[in-house]
């Protein structure tokens, strides 16, 4: 429902501004141009979406996420002290985080929700905040859009993406620690 309000708001604001700036003629054309551009955009990135989905399927089938989960174990113990003695929760969190890192959205959410059922208080908040921040190692969709918009290599922004992701996750983790201090 939220999206309906946003969309209606966007069209309402556009109508008011088009009237005020006297650009109703151009605005009428703009909506239809945008729709056409959207089709061109999605077609131009469909190849990349398919290709990376293929790579991710291989990652999933070969158990790469499982290997990554084991590496993440110590980090999870540090971030989720309440889940220390709950092996099932620890496993689900590890699965959720490694799927997020590899960009396997379809695998991340079920694992995350399984973990959420077993967590409470600060640990639950931590899980939610980490999931709402991005940890994807390969920003494949944005790379595809950049390349179709004329970047020589769509992944040229990968290091700034990593830096921004790390800072943002760290800020979220610190915020949860401070805000939920009383929860231990």
């Amino acid at each position, binding site marked *: 429902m*939220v*999206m309906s309000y946003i969309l209606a708001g*966007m*069209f309402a*604001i556009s*109508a008011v501004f*088009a009237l005020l700036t006297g*650009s109703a003629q151009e*605005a009428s054309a*703009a*909506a239809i141009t*945008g*729709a056409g*551009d*959207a089709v061109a955009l*999605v077609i131009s990135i*469909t190849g990349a*979406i*398919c*290709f*990376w*989905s*293929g*790579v*991710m*399927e*291989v990652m999933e*089938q*070969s*158990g*790469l996420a499982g290997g990554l989960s084991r590496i993440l174990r110590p980090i999870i113990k540090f971030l989720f002290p309440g889940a220390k003695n709950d092996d099932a929760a620890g496993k689900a969190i590890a699965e959720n985080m490694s799927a997020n890192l590899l960009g396997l959205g379809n695998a991340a959410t079920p694992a995350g*929700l399984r973990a*959420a*059922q077993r967590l*409470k*208080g600060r640990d*639950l908040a931590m899980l939610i*905040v980490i*999931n*709402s*921040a*991005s940890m994807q190692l*390969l*920003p494949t*969709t*944005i790379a595809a*859009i950049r390349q179709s*918009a004329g970047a020589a290599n769509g992944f040229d*922004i*990968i290091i*700034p*993406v990593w*830096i*921004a992701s790390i800072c*943002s996750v*760290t800020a*979220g983790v610190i*915020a*949860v620690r401070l*805000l939920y201090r009383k929860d231990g």
Partner: protein
Amino acid sequence: MLVPALLAFVTVFGACRGVDVYAAMIKGAGEGLKTAAKILPPVIIMLSAVTLLRQSGFFELFTRLISPVLSLFGIPAETTPIILIRPFSGTGALAVVSELLTRYGANSYVGRTASVMMGSTETTFYVLAVYFGATKTGKLKKAVFAALLADFVSYVVSALAVRIFF
């Protein structure tokens, strides 16, 4: 070099683990096709709305109004549209980034910053809704604040990192 190395690693590792790598890639690519078909309708609607908003002169005015605040944090005001839509809609943000890249260029400061913002954040309110829906604790208001703070940090660092890196 990153992409070729990754592809080599994933396929060789998969083959060594006995995965039918070729079949898996075909299967995944087929699923990608479904993903593309699924995002097309929302991208059409959102990009129409975004193009209309741009044409109406709203972005221009809003950008000028918010510029002094954002410049305190080193964020280029031209990226306001993505900051506004990113937490609510992934496809909407996709439409906005694409519009900014067409308008300012993929290799411009604005284009790069918008790309990094997009790549380093999630659809925050969507994620919050999914997890809040599945859990029934009331003590999560502070988590919303932490999640939005993380987004804000990502925007500030995106602008900074692009300035330093390029």
